[in-house]
């Protein structure tokens, strides 16, 4: 090391100012993507994240976006540096991209781009931007099929490669990518907005490093990691020592009907915590598998969210945590397992960790949330408009807390997606919405009620369309805590010629025709505490507002109104 970072003295005040500046840099990158991206999934769903890393690839600061991305980007970058493109091969005007789950990524639609930042010829850090792309090829439109049994069916796998080298676009790589995807213009537009955001982020970091000098800049990044580590250790230290276990299940993998067990054993010893996932099911045939990168990100999200004080989230938080997951489980999938719906495993693991922590710190943990990204993918082929691909990610209700009801229809846990304005969709493709609303009686009853799930109906207005879904919670309902009851399950229906038929949770490339209506119903959140303890006024209000039907109020709360 040619810079002695240990010599640089940084006061706590200066450190806070630097942290704010790094967070502002991530925010500037975030704004760039939001304002310039092309696809509905990035621009309206907001499925992207930006972050700043130290010179070794550890995440120092994040923009407030998607937890499942944010805490996996370090994992990906350090893997790339260790196994694919070593640090000395990164130049100041290079950009490396990859989407490969087996190189440290999560699933193929997420293309991550990283750029190293230099000062006086020395690498001082990295900036990174992740976008969920609309389609990266493979057997299903939207690359979100539920029937793949190998990753090769899920789309184009891009190993870590330099898409930009010495400031010059690597055109053959770009062409290979664009030749393999369904809407190349949109992918390229989104990828360009990622590149623009890296440029903005790098300029911000360079400016900060110029002000501080590179030695002090690097010392600051080290201390920021140390500071978050200390904060995390203090949080763990306040959790009573002991071992806490919990489990829940994902319905199935879309291929076989077997439930997938998600089990965690948390051991708290002083200021360190071990998360043992050895009790999880082996990896499955269908795409409900998570790589270790996804799983680490889930564990870190759940622990940071559960902290009793706000923590500056970064890779320092990861240090006091040990994750045990032998290769080949659904939480540590090995090549060539399909992984596109890795978020199903992640969501469920997050609720399992909350459930385990409830035993340790019952005063602050919520009952289960809907805990699945309700992914509905439609491709329409219209004689005039041509091909349109739509990926929608819907949400459900949040679990009740020990002191309040859960929120209805709000993004929670591992993802943080906005919905897409229905008018935007209707203006772009031959789909008409029949409605979008909260679903009565879906929140788990309890002293505190779980939030409500929602319904959304799409009608196909063209001769040919295909539906693929990756849903869950049709069988295993979101659990309640402390005597609270579980929430309603989810469901999917096809309404054709006036007849309503239930569909399975994972549908692949189902052909639809003019006039078909697809109806999605999502789960609510689990209840907290015994329903008989719920205040009468709250039950009456719920009935008045239609959150709970009069019949359900009688059944669940033992009173009518």
């Amino acid at each position, binding site marked *: 090391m040619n810079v002695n970072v240990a010599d640089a003295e940084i006061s*706590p*005040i200066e450190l*806070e*100012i630097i942290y*704010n*500046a790094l967070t502002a840099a991530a*925010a*500037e990158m975030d*704004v760039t993507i*939001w*304002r*310039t991206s*092309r696809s*509905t999934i990035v*621009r*309206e769903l907001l499925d992207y994240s930006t972050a700043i890393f130290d010179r070794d690839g550890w995440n120092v600061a994040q923009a*407030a*976006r*998607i937890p499942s991305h944010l805490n996996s980007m370090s994992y990906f970058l350090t893997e790339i540096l260790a196994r694919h493109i070593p640090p000395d091969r990164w130049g100041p005007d290079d950009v490396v991209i990859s989407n490969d789950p087996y190189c440290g990524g999560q699933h193929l639609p997420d293309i991550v781009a990283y750029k190293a930042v230099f000062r006086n010829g020395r690498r001082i850090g990295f900036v990174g931007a992740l976008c969920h792309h609309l389609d990266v090829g493979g057997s299903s439109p939207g690359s979100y099929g539920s029937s793949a049994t190998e990753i090769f069916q899920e789309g184009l796998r891009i190993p870590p490669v330099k898409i930009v080298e010495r400031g010059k676009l690597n055109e053959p790589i770009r062409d290979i990518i664009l030749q393999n995807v369904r809407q190349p*213009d*949109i992918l390229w*537009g989104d990828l360009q907005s990622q590149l623009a955001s890296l*440029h*903005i982020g790098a300029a911000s970091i360079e400016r900060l490093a110029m002000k501080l000098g590179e030695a002090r800049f690097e010392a600051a990044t080290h201390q920021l990691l140390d*500071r978050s580590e200390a*904060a995390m250790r203090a949080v763990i230290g306040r959790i009573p020592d002991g071992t806490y276990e919990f489990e829940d299940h994902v319905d199935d993998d879309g291929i076989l009907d077997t439930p997938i067990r998600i089990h965690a054993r948390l051991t708290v010893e002083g200021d360190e915590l071990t998360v043992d996932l050895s009790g999880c099911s082996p990896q499955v045939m269908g795409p409900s598998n998570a790589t270790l990168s996804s799983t680490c990100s889930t564990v870190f999200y759940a622990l940071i969210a*559960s*902290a009793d*004080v*706000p923590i500056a989230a970064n890779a320092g938080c990861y240090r006091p945590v040990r994750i045990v997951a032998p290769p080949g489980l659904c939480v540590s999938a090995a090549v060539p397992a399909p992984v596109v719906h890795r978020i199903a495993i992640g969501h469920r693991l997050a609720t399992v960790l909350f459930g385990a922590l409830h035993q340790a710190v019952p005063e*602050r943990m*919520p009952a289960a949330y809907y805990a699945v990204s309700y992914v509905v993918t439609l491709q329409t082929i219209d004689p005039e408009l041509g091909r349109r691909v739509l990926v929608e990610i819907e*949400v459900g209700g*949040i679990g009740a807390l020990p002191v309040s009801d859960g*929120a*209805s*229809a*709000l*993004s*929670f846990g591992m993802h*943080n*997606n*906005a*919905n897409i*304005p*229905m*008018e*935007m969709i*209707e*203006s772009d493709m031959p789909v*008409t*919405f*029949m*409605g*979008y*609303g*909260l679903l009565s009686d879906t929140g788990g009853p309890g002293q505190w009620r779980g939030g409500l799930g*929602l319904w959304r109906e799409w009608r196909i207005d063209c001769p040919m369309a295909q539906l693929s879904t990756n849903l869950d919670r049709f069988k295993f309902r979101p659990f309640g805590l402390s005597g609270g009851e579980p929430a309603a399950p989810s469901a999917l229906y096809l309404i054709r010629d006036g007849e309503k038929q239930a569909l399975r949770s994972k549908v692949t490339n189902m052909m639809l025709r003019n006039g078909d209506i697809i109806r999605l119903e999502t789960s609510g959140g689990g209840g907290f505490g015994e329903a008989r303890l719920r205040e009468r006024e709250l039950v009456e209000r719920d009935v*008045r507002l239609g*959150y709970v039907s009069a019949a359900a109020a009688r059944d669940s709360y033992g009173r009518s109104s």
Partner: protein
Amino acid sequence: MALIEVAPVRIGVDIGGTFTDLQIYDARTGAIVGYKTPTTPQDPSIGLMTGIKEAAARYNFTLPDVGFLLHGTTIATNAILERKLPKAVLVTTAGFEDVLEIGRHVRREVYALSPQQPPTLIPRDCRIGVAERIRADGSVEVPLTPAALENLAAAIDRIDPVSVAVCLMNSYLNPQHEQDIAGYLAKTRPALKVSCASALSAEIREYERTSTTVLNAVLIPVIAGYLDKLTHRMETEGFRPRLLLVQSNGGVCAARTAALEPVRLLLSGPSGGSAACALLSKILGEDNLIGVDMGGTSFDVSVVRNGRVNVVMQGEVDRMPVRIPMVEIRAIGAGGGSLAKVQRGKRLTVGPESAGSYPGPACYGRGGVGATVTDANVTLGRIDGEKFLGGGMRLDSQAARGVIDAEVAKPLSLATEPAAEGLLAVVNANLGAAIRLSLFEKGVDPREFTMIAFGGAAGLHAVAVADETGIGRVVFPENASTLSAYGILHSDLIHDLVRSRVLDATPEKLGAITPLLECLVADARTRLDADAIPENDRHIELSADMHYKGQAFELTVPLRSLQLDEAALPVLIGDFHDLHRQYFSYSNPGSAVEIVSLRASAIGRLPKPAAKGAAARDSGQPIGKRKIWLSGGWRDVVVWNRDDVFPGVTIEGPAVIEEAYTSVLLVEGWSCRRDKSGHLVARRH
């Protein structure tokens, strides 16, 4: 009655939480004078009328001399924040009643276990779905039947609201059903106030349009009620000026418009300050200004580019989107009263929590126990505790030192002064980041900007924040504490009109675009007719919200004339590519461009006061020296009274320039002069 100013006096009024500020222009003398009177929160029109009568007595004008009363108010904003709202009903397309409650379902606190949702102002049992449907091409799929109208009216009767919001799917394309509902209710339930989305915000995106319409509906009784009271009070005093209200877009509108479309006033609080910045841009001959307004609890940044205040098409109040054009303000919770805290792990954070005005900072001696920005400034001698608020309040500097010591110094193991200096460094860095982000979003460089600093707390921070951001020039305007009213005094009448239609920007679509533009221009003329604006004072501007096909965010591109033909279209598209490159560092000249909305601003120019420059003295001296902590040590610093700074003298930093309600701190490396209009202009060497 034509809108020609015959009466000689014009009054701009800004009703704030504590004071009602008046700025009075008298064409007979050419003088602009200010007057302050306490606000009367229970009925602000009382304080307003009192202030005007007192000012009339003091400045020798009579009430009939007043031709225009330009009125800025935060009544709408406060009613929303305090939820003092009437009962209202929301009418939607059947099946979409919950769009308002679901919102965009994204959370802001990523790691929170109990994240906050935007408030839902109309609860579920007051939302009514009606059988009808407009398709995405504007055609009707389900007609609105007379039976549906009758059922709707019956359902509304059961709820018995005072106000109704109507927002139907795709009504931005075809307003017919909304108009049918409004027409039916006007005929059968004439007491109901009905707000239609298509009339207020004819723009795509159902949630944002619904939210805007709902805010309008709940505000109508509030604003109409206030205006009734005000006009009644004015009538009884024989006071009959043209009453104009300040809108969020920085212009004013007739009281009649405000009563029907009060949502346009919702974020007008900072409008006056930004309007003043635009005016200063002309006076100073500076095209690019960044306005920073720092008071007790917040720091508001606005941007003037090429002489015009930056306007955005959407803002929000209490997390609810408001889709109408408004002056762009970036507000962060940092002001004199912002509280410093040392979090676990020795993290020093400042704000957004504030000590408020009561008990306020510890140095106010009213029992405040938190360490605030003002306490740090007092501890370091930057505020003279004997002269606060023009000597109207004595500050307790021992109390300030005490809280800085206990709340910041001890937990960080620092001495008192370095702790206070550190607190200010954190604040200044946050202020700098807010400015950088505001300019960054537009792809422009802070070094090309001059900062205008106003509000009670800005003077002590402005130069440090300028250093932080690379800005080399800071202007401290005359009358900084009533600058907002000064801006209001100079406002124009503005109507914003919009038609949303997603169309390819190609010659083939001109057939669809042209009638929309003609419609907008005709509507603009009608509105200016209704306001009785003389032909010579009218100005209509057209613009198009455009994006690359697929993008979520539109850029607003001005049209160069009132017509868009085959020759003008490529120019418009070229302007879009240029603007895109400037904002986002790239453009795609080969890519398909779409027009999402077309806009018209109908501007009625009000005659501008021709103010005379302030008389300048030709000599002056500093009033003394004071010990101030700067860059790690106590120093003897020269202190000036602002009134003694005359043109021709150059003050070198470090120095303090005091005035009644604020002080300016000039650090080393900066010098300051007074220009001929009385503004202080500081420059970095």
